[in-house]
């Protein structure tokens, strides 16, 4: 914390004197926008931190390998988009036309990807997306944008149903936030469950500013389903974690969508999180991946023992690895990078990745479970680091 205070003070001091040129050599300039203020500001660090870890890892090696012709260090040009998609559009226009960056990387969140899609296409800047997930992304014209996420709602629905079936679940209760990603999941989940013969005993949706879930949870307890599937974001995930324990929800499978993969959340609930299933497809020990342990160690070292967000930070790092490998193959020519991304197979911390159109065609959607305080990938089975287990009684 003191260190952070010190850096912050330095920034203030720095604005009074001109900051000198950062690198003597000729670095590769890469630009992106980050929500540092506004509604999504709390989600920003998961992304920015992963970019910074990647930058440090690459620069410590001497820089990016430019098509086998020597190395150049990475310099970031980053601006705050105020969580406003229109501001993100303006930032990418500025990065490309006025800052003259060599390459751009992804902004945060699905809506910002949609917003800047026309910009990168107009200027023919390849951009490997992260932190964006919606089936509507597939409607983006293939060309300059790709989406690394395996967490597309239709694939999630398929894998969720398969996992529930493998666990002999006959009935579920569903709760979901009205926001886009959560409700889009339900659109695909319900038909998939019906097809598999799993009954939905209870269903409720709630607005993002919900303050209490006791009513819903009391009804769920009465319905006594085999599994409770909560499609929630960090704030409402906390409500669930507190109030499900109060009400005494004891289903053997409890899924809490976004939250448990983020460090602060595990700090809040510790042993009570054991047995909770969440949306994540990575863990440092994941087999057949490239650089997982190195990424994990570098992240923890850089951020004083904090763990990466197993969902967003991971996906961001994957997109950076893809860019790095494409550059290593063809250099900085953007048209060649585009062709490389379209055709190459990449080795990432998610494992092998190849794009089909705009979409990651190899990595399957998956789930993780907190087991004895650690995050284990439990689904799909061929990637699992541990088998999914029944959620026991709440710890406290």
């Amino acid at each position: 914390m003191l260190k952070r205070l010190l850096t912050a003070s330095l920034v203030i001091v720095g604005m009074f004197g001109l900051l000198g040129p950062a690198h003597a050599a000729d670095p590769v300039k890469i630009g992106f926008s980050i929500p540092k203020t506004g509604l999504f500001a709390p989600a920003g660090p998961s992304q920015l931190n992963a970019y910074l870890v990647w930058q440090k890892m690459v620069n410590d090696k001497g820089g990016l390998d430019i098509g086998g012709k020597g190395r150049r260090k990475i310099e970031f040009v980053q601006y705050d988009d105020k969580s406003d998609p229109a501001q993100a559009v303006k930032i990418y226009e500025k990065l490309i036309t006025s800052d003259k960056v060599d390459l751009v990387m992804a902004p945060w969140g699905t809506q910002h990807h949609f917003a800047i899609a026309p910009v990168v296409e107009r200027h023919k800047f390849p951009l490997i997306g992260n932190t964006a997930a919606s089936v509507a992304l597939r409607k983006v014209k293939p060309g300059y944008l790709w989406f690394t996420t395996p967490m597309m709602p239709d694939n999630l629905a398929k894998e969720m149903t398969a996992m529930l079936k493998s666990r002999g679940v006959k009935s579920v209760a569903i709760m979901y936030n009205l926001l886009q990603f959560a409700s889009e999941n339900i659109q695909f989940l319900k038909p998939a469950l019906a097809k598999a013969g799993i009954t939905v005993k209870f269903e409720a949706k709630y607005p993002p500013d919900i303050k209490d879930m006791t009513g819903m949870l009391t009804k769920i307890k009465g319905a006594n389903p085999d599994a409770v599937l909560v499609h929630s974001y960090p704030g409402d995930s906390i409500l669930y974690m507190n109030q499900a324990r109060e009400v005494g929800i004891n289903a053997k499978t409890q899924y809490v969508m976004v939250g448990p993969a983020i460090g602060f959340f595990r700090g809040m609930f510790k042993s009570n999180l054991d047995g909770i299933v969440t949306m994540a497809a990575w863990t440092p020990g994941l087999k057949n991946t490239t650089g997982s342990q190195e990424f994990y160690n570098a992240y923890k070292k850089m951020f004083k023992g904090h763990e990466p967000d197993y969902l967003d930070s991971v996906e961001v790092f994957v997109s950076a690895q893809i860019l790095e490998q494409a550059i290593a193959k063809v250099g900085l020519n953007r048209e060649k990078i585009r062709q490389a991304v379209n055709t190459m197979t990449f080795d990432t911390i998610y494992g092998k990745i190849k794009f089909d159109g705009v979409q990651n065609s190899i990595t399957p959607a998956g789930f993780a479970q907190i087991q004895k305080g650690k995050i284990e990938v439990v689904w799909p089975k061929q990637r699992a680091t541990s088998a999914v287990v029944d959620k026991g009684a709440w710890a406290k």
Partner: protein
Amino acid sequence: MNNSSNSLRFIGIGAVIAIFGGLSGFASEYMLGIGFTLFMYIALAQSWVILSGMTGYISLGHVVFFGSGAYVFVLMWGLVPVWLGVALSGLVVGIGALIIGYPVLRVRGPYFVILSFGLAELVKNLVLINEARMYMSLRPVFGAPSLAQLYIAMLVLAVAATGLTYWVRRSRFGAGLRSIREDEWAAETIGIPVARLKLIAFALSGIVPAMVGAIFIMRSGIFQPGDAFNPIVSFTIVTMAIIGGSDDAPGPLLGVGFLVILQELLWANWPEIYMIILGILLISFVLFAPSGIYGWLSANISRSKKNAA
């Protein structure tokens, strides 16, 4: 003010508009983007002044018009020609404002401030529920007109809103509105139809923001209730209008111009602390120029004139 200086002024204004319009042909994309933001907030702040500046009913929920316009527009996206859709969204929202305006405007003072905020939240949540019901919580807007076209459209709205404020301020209608601000009870007693005037002002102040909202989502490429009804937009409108100061057209022009250009200079150069600088500026404004830029300028100009004489 004599006739020749009046016509000179009109020629000047016409020339400025023409220059801004002409810029769409060759200015860089980034510059057009700044122009777009500038015109957008001019249109929004001028509309706000028609209701809040003139009547004293401070709306902290003006984003309700902006968001509703965007929503109406996105529902028609692909079904009607783009610019017809923009006009229709203004029309629909204007009619909506007429319907809800009467009961809402019975509430006064700080009660109205928070009520207007609540209204925006209410509409946002209704849209959210409706969209989630159709699993459409995020609607991409593909194939929007070019930035140059959107820039021109926004310029047209900014000019229209400024003209409207200018006209209202000088009309009998505007005089009625200002009598409401001074003392609504007294105005009513002497026979001014305050309820009707307020209602018309409410609807007038909603039409342009609705069209701005429609054009805005073509720029951001996406409609999401949370973005379209973002309370920050309401706060920004109020801030710019008050900093400009006054219930007349030049106020918002000054306030918006100052803040938008300042923000552009700041965020690119001091990304870490530009918001802090901006906040400090807002605070200083209240402390040192409580009647806004326009009020401060007029006070100083009249003082210097007096000194010269």
